[in-house]
């Protein structure tokens, strides 16, 4: 190895040879957006030439990471309360908070399950054949809180409680039940609408009055300005609100805010 090559290797190792690509925006997205968001970035990147880097997790986790200095440019939360708190704390770009969708929750069972969702509804959860019920962790996942609220609404929370297994996010809860590790799950409609989930199971939409509205909000973070990504983050914000973005969200079962509303 020549000395020059060795030097390049050392620089690469030290991370100096990999300059940050301009216009590369870091997106923190709630786990329920997993499939919808992945479908959005393709056309957005093609049309604008920008690059997005996606991270998925529970909104509560992202909130605490952002408070601790995580370098995300834009945060799509499953619950508008987290971006609101960030905005109040001065960690957001003023005036960029927006509602992009309202989420819904469903009961989901794998194909081979004997549960008749249409007839049993929420009572399916207390069916003797059900041993494990997957939900997102209510401590830091808004969809987990909605699931608990719905069970309380139908007065079955106390009986189901001992059967709950909580995923780190709504996405993990979906994976638990899709893989058959849990018999039934309370998961976002947006995940149940994904092709992989449609193929392997069926769902029943939980009535909206059973749980508080899941208002999903997003915020451009102050980091974006610091990283020089403010314009790109804003472009993506507009794209999500555009007709194309809305069409994708709609396909994944989100209820959309009025067009042009903030």
């Amino acid at each position, binding site marked *: 190895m020549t000395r020059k090559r060795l030097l390049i290797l050392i620089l*690469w*190792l*030290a*991370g100096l040879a990999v300059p940050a690509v301009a216009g590369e925006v*870091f997106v923190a997205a709630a*786990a329920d957006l*997993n*499939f919808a968001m992945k479908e959005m970035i393709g056309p957005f990147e093609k049309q604008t030439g920008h690059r997005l*880097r*996606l*991270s*998925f*997790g529970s909104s509560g986790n992202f909130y605490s*990471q952002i408070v*601790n*200095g*995580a*370098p*995300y440019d834009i945060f799509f939360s499953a619950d508008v309360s987290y971006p609101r708190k960030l905005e109040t704390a001065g960690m957001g770009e003023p005036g960029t908070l927006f509602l992009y969708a309202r989420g819904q929750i469903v009961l989901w069972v794998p194909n081979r399950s004997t549960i008749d969702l249409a007839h049993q509804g929420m009572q399916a959860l207390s069916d003797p054949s059900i041993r494990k019920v997957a939900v997102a962790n209510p401590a830091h996942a808004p969809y987990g809180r909605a699931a608990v609220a719905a069970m309380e609404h139908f007065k079955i929370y106390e009986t189901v409680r001992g059967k709950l297994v909580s995923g780190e*996010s709504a*996405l*993990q809860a*979906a*994976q638990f039940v*899709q893989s058959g590790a849990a018999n039934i799950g309370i998961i976002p409609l947006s995940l149940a609408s*994904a092709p*992989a*989930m449609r193929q392997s199971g069926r769902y029943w939409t939980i009535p909206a009055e059973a749980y508080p509205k899941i208002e999903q909000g997003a915020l451009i973070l102050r980091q974006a300005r610091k990283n020089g990504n403010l314009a790109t983050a804003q472009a993506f914000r507009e794209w999500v609100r555009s007709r194309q973005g809305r069409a994708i969200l709609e396909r994944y079962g989100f209820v959309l805010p009025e067009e042009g509303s903030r």
Partner: protein
Amino acid sequence: MISALNWLAIALTLRLAAVTSAILVALGLPIAYWITYSRRRWKFLVESVVALPLVLPPTVLGFYVLIAIGPNAFPGRMYERLMGHQLPFTFEGLVIASTLYSLPFAVQPFVAALDSVDRRLIEASWTLGVSRIGTFFRVVLPQSAYGVLTGVILSFAHTLGEFGVVLMVGGNIEGVTRTISIDIYDNVQSLNYASASTTSLVLLVFSFVVLSIVYALNRRIWAVGPEFRR
């Protein structure tokens, strides 16, 4: 099959493992040297601290590192003042966490290797007027090369497979802190089983190869002198 691999994550993980191993050589050799030759009574305490990551839950280590390098602790504040940005959720933060986490995987083989060097050779070197540093590089290190190599390989492999600490300190950011094992976790969660199994297979084969190399090195089947070679 190849397209299912996340090359960004692989490159990042290899870089993390390489940097961590390099730091562990620089940091681990002096520690190992001290442990091997020191006669202090409280040596066992240092040995325990070095071995801690073997038994400590990754979440405990991750938690402490996250707090220590965060903006509210002295080390984190100093770093921010010097470098202008914070450590958590960055590559540098991962390097710090990995170095701590893989410390015993480097230091323990180093100690075993240094310990096996014949003291008479070292003393002979000193008697001939070679300095301690000179003796270390010209007598001790060549004699314990295989053990040092074992430590480097083990710490490299261990860093590749690290999960809990990376998740806590790194926060799963693509191209910055999303390592191979986190990528597998993401793929399983996203029901992308094909991709998860390909990547897992690569890691499985790699780990097997690494361990085979380590055991081969320690058997010294290649260590016969040239005059004995057929």
